[in-house]
Each structure stands twice: as structure tokens, then as C-alpha cells.
């Protein structure tokens, strides 16, 4: 990086306007927060299109934006699988099959669903692991933001973190989930408008899609792959040596496409909370489907800049990605460096505000999920069972403050111990993958009981840890990357190891849950009504026009994603 960039008054003005709006929305919405349900679940009154965009935006933390652009540079079009194979099918499944249970059970959170379906200890396990993970996730997000703003603008690391933390804290304290949701929708449009010019200008610079393909062919060949390895998403995943990501199609489809994505999209309360806030069952089911539309188009917004960046760097003509001290390219800087290169003052302010907005929306998502799970699933059942609604509302606000402070603490921890991020990646995989198996069995097999679920979750988590301890990605040193028990298998890449850890964790949880459930007592059938597929009356979509029915919309989304996959085959 050649020093920090110059921001003009227009850029500051744009940022100031955005912060003013974000706080203003919180202030206006404060009047609507009267009960704890208003605060934690927006009183279940959000229209599908708003909930859908918030659903998407809560997931869209800056790490997604920066990380996907980095992956686009490092791996090329194959990164699209995170979206087109990973996210979309999971979102459709959530909408069509799982939402009826989440929304119909009137559970106020994912852990609460687990209590209703299984038992208290399963809920407790999920609640505690989720709160820890979500706070750490928030902290990592803030740390990344502080680092980036410091690198890019020379802003003080602590100051930028605290400033954003205070703003997020303010608007959530004031307006609760509704405030977070409204701001997430705002942030969504800001991200689209802030980064789209980058794609246009970058493509213009490199000579359109054909110019990009030619440039990428040079990149691929220079690194020893077939010319199409960076611009085609399916043709080069027959074996791990054909593509820069080091994956093969089975590990990709099962590990990423099934276990990891479904595990995230279907069970992470940060996401599901937005659908639970919808105004009706059909709105709740449409929420993830609404989100599939921008989600399937996002590769063009975030992955493409990365691909353009690497092609230009290879070309050596002007724009180039900066290198790290060890000589390798610093892929994480794709978006910031391109912003600075292409955007004049004005658009630069917009792009930076969009970047900051994406950090803030990620953080807000974590904080609202935290305050809800803490208050409803840890405080209420274990610490103070019978207080008034006003008391829980107050606790929710206190938890918001605590959540923000804990996130800041986590951010400082991460800055002190850099390996924490690697550890956390693992923890997420260990916990999320088996959880999805638990939900599948819980929602579709009435014989699954509490003991089975709890033991299955534990077993799955242990299996993930074991798999990680016994395998190592190529070129890695045994330790935090794996192989800390013994190295019995070497994977072509970290990503491949990740996918297979997830597969093992999920499968183990599945098998153990089934076994333990069969060995124990079947749950009382009457208690399962509305919680399990076989015990719930089919939702009658009779009077809804066909094009609004979740199954139809879901099928359309899948068809669209099939077309996209074929187009970039």
C-alpha cells in the first residue's frame, strides 16, 4: 500500500449522512418497542421483502465481501459454489421445509425450538455454544474492520472499532431487532450501490468478460493449471490437482453444498431470527426465498472484482495487488485496493461507507442474536424464571450492551493472539455441522429423542475434533491446522480438510442420534405437534396464487441457479 488515501470533504459528508440516518432510524423506531417481543422479534410484523433483504444482509458481513473477493482472486469462478451450490439450496430448504416448524412452534429462538422438540440439556448446549460463537464472530468482524481502516485510512485501530460499536449499540438499544433489520436493508442497498461501480469500471478496464477470460487464462497457466481453471466453475473439479482450491466434486458437494451450508443457513439463529420476525407464516416462508434473488447475483458483485484484480495483477499493466512481507499476494486487500484505484472522491466515500456498513450489519446481526438467546435461553430458564415482560425487555437492553462490550473484548483478544481466528473457524465447523444433523432428525423423524440429540451433538463435535486432529492440509505444519494427534491423512488444501471434517461430524451425529434414540424411549407424540413433519397438519396454501407458494418459488430459485451453474460450467 503506498500510504493512506486522501479523503475529500464529500467523502466525509457521505459517511456523516449515513451515520445520521442509521441513528435516526433507531430513534424513530424507539416508540414502537413496547414489549420484549417487539425488541427481540420485531413483534413478528416484518413484511417478507424487508425480512428477506435483512436475512441476506445479516449474513453479509464485511468478511463475506472481503473474503469472497479474496477467494475470487485466489481461486476464480469456483468460488461461486459457495453461493450457487452452497447457499441457495440451503435457503430453499429452510423456506420450504423448516420454516413451518420454526415459525409454527412459536419458538422465539433456535435453542427454544430445541427445548420444545427435545429437552432442556439440548437447548442449553446449543444456547451456550451459540452465544460464545456469536460474540467471538462479532469480535473478529470488528478486529478486521479496525485493521482495515487503519491500513487504508490511517485511522486509529481502537477509535474506529469503538466508534462503530457505539453506533451499532445505540441503534439496537433504541429500536431493537426492527432497528437492526431496517438498517440491514439500508446497508444492503448501500453495498450494492457502493460496489457495483467497481465491477463496471474493472470490467471496462480489462476489456469485458472476454478480456477477463483471456487474462485469467494467463493466471491459470502461470500457476500450472488448465487455462479455464479460474473462469469455469465445474470443469476442473474432477480431482484436487486440477484447481487452485484443491477440492474434488464430492467433497465440495457433500461438505460445502450440503453439510456446511445447510448447517449454517438452517440453524444459525442470526439468520433464522430475521425470518422469525416476519408478519405471518407465509411471509416467514417467503423470506429466505426473497433472499435467494440477491444472493444468487452477488457473485457478480463480490467474486468478480477478485477475478478482475488477479487478472490485472498478472497483466502487470498498472493495477496490482500488493504483496505481503513473505512475497505472497495479499488477497484480502482486493476490494480496498480496487476502491482506491478506481473511485474518485465522492464514489470513494460511498464505497468506504458501504464497507463500513457491511461490518456494522454483520455486527448488529450478532448482537441481536446474542441478546435474544441470552435473555430467552440462558437468563430466563436458568437465572430468573418468572419476572415480568418489562424486566426481560430491560435485560435484553442490558444484554445488548454486554454483547457489544464482549465483542470489543473478543476483538482485542484476537489482535493479541492471531491464531484465535483459526481456532474459531474450527469451532464453528465443529459445532454447526453436527447441529444440522440434529435438526434434520428432529424435524423429520419423530422417534428422535432428547438423549439422542444431546449425545449425538457431543459425538459429532468430538468426531470433528478427532478428524481435525488426525489430518493435515498439504504444506501445513501440525498444530492449529490439524494433525495434533497424528497425521494419518493429508488433504490437498485446508478447504478440502474443512469440507471433510464437516462430513464426518454430520455423519457421526446422524448415526449416534439415531442409535441412542432407538435405544431409548420414543417422545410423547402429542407433544410433537407442530414440531415434527409427521405430526403437523400440512400447511394449506390453497387460496394463495401459485406464484407466491414457497414450493413454486423455491423451484424457480433452484432452476435459476441451475442455469447459472451451466452458464459458467
Amino acid at each position, binding site marked *: 500500500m503506498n500510504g493512506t488515501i486522501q479523503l475529500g470533504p*464529500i467523502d466525509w459528508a457521505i459517511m456523516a449522512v449515513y451515520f445520521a440516518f442509521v441513528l435516526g432510524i433507531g430513534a424513530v423506531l424507539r416508540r414502537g418497542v413496547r414489549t420484549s417481543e417487539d425488541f427481540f422479534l420485531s413483534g413478528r410484523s416484518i413484511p417478507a421483502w424487508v425480512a428477506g433483504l435483512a436475512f441476506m444482509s445479516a449474513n453479509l458481513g464485511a468478511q463475506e465481501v472481503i473474503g469472497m473477493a479474496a477467494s475470487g482472486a485466489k481461486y476464480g469462478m469456483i468460488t461461486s459454489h459457495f453461493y450457487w451450490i452452497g447457499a441457495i439450496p440451503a435457503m430453499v430448504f429452510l423456506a420450504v421445509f423448516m420454516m413451518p416448524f420454526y415459525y409454527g412452534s412459536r419458538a422465539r429462538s433456535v435453542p427454544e425450538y430445541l427445548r420444545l422438540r427435545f429437552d432442556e440439556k439440548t437447548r442449553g448446549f446449543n444456547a451456550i455454544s451459540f452465544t460464545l460463537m456469536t460474540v467471538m464472530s462479532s469480535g473478529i468482524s470488528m478486529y478486521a474492520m479496525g485493521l482495515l481502516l487503519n491500513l487504508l485510512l490511517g485511522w486509529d485501530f481502537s477509535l474506529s472499532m469503538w466508534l462503530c460499536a457505539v453506533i451499532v449499540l445505540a441503534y439496537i438499544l433504541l429500536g431493537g431487532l426492527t432497528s437492526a433489520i431496517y438498517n440491514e436493508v439500508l446497508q444492503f442497498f448501500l453495498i450494492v450501490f457502493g460496489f457495483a461501480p467497481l465491477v463496471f469500471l474493472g470490467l471496462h478496464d480489462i476489456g469485458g468478460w472476454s478480456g477477463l477470460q483471456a487474462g485469467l487464462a494467463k493466471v491459470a497457466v502461470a500457476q500450472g493449471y488448465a487455462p479455464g481453471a479460474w473462469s469455469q466453475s465445474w470443469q476442473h473439479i474432477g480431482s484436487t490437482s486440477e484447481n487452485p482450491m484443491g477440492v474434488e466434486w464430492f467433497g465440495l458437494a457433500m461438505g460445502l453444498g450440503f453439510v456446511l451450508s445447510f448447517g449454517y443457513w438452517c440453524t444459525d439463529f442470526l439468520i433464522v431470527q430475521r425470518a422469525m420476525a416476519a408478519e405471518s407464516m407465509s411471509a416467514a416462508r417467503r423470506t429466505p426465498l426473497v433472499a435467494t434473488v440477491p444472493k444468487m447475483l452477488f457473485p457478480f458483485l463480490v467474486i468478480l472484482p477478485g477475478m478482475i484484480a488477479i487478472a490485472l495483477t498478472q497483466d502487470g499493466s498498472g493495477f496490482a495487488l500488493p504483496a505481503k512481507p513473505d512475497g505472497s499476494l495479499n488477497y484480502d486487500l482486493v476490494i480496498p485496493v480496487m476502491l482506491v484505484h478506481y473511485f474518485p472522491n465522492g464514489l470513494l466515500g*460511498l464505497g468506504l461507507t458501504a464497507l463500513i456498513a457491511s461490518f456494522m450489519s454483520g455486527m448488529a446481526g450478532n448482537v441481536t442474536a446474542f441478546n435474544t438467546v441470552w435473555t430467552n435461553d440462558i437468563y430466563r430458564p436458568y437465572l430468573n424464571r418468572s419476572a415480568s415482560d418489562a424486566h426481560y425487555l430491560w435485560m435484553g437492553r442490558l444484554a445488548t450492551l454486554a454483547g457489544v462490550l464482549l465483542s470489543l473484548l473478543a476483538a482485542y483478544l484476537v489482535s493479541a493472539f492471531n491464531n484465535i481466528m483459526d481456532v474459531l473457524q474450527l469451532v464453528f465447523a465443529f459445532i454447526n455441522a453436527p447441529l444440522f444433523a440434529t435438526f434434520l432428525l428432529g424435524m423429520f423423524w419423530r422417534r428422535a429423542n432428547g438423549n439422542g440429540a444431546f449425545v449425538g451433538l457431543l459425538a459429532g463435535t468430538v468426531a470433528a475434533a478427532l478428524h481435525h486432529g488426525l489430518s493435515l492440509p498439504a504444506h501445513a505444519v501440525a498444530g492449529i491446522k490439524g494433525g495434533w494427534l497424528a497425521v494419518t491423512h493429508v488433504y490437498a488444501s485446508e478447504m478440502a480438510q474443512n469440507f471433510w471434517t464437516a462430513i464426518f461430524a454430520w455423519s457421526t451425529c446422524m448415526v449416534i442420534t439415531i442409535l441412542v434414540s432407538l435405544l431409548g424411549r420414543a417422545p410423547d407424540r402429542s407433544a410433537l405437534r407442530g414440531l415434527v413433519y409427521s405430526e403437523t397438519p400440512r400447511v394449506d396454501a390453497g387460496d394463495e396464487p401459485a406464484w407466491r407458494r414457497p414450493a413454486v418459488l423455491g423451484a424457480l430459485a433452484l432452476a435459476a441457479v441451475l442455469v447459472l451453474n451451466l452458464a459458467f460450467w
Partner: protein
Amino acid sequence: MIDIRQPIGWLFALLGMLLLIQGLGSATAAASRSVGFNVDACWGAVMLVFAATMLALAWRQRRRAGTQG
């Protein structure tokens, strides 16, 4: 509860206006930086169109709902 299209509309109207003014005010600087044309002004205009669409949709919704804003 406020219709979310209103704050979106107003935010983008303000931002679009700022960009447009910036773009028109410093035409040469903007053009040289970004591959030969005035992106600030162009994008500012695009954002204003988006803002107008949002506000129009919000206004239409209000009319349909009668006097309940």
C-alpha cells in the same frame, strides 16, 4: 411503523445529490481518475432514480392505505 422505503429513498436522494454535485463540480478530475468518464455524476444520477422509485412506491403504498401513514 415507518415504511422502510422512505428512509431508503431519502438516504439515496441525499447521497445521489451529493455525488451528482461533486461530479458536475469537478468534471475534469473525476474523468481522469476513472477510465475516462464522469462516474460521480453518472452514478449520482442513477442513485437519484433509485431514490425516486423508492419514494414513489412508498407514496403509492400510503395512498392505498388511506390516511394511515
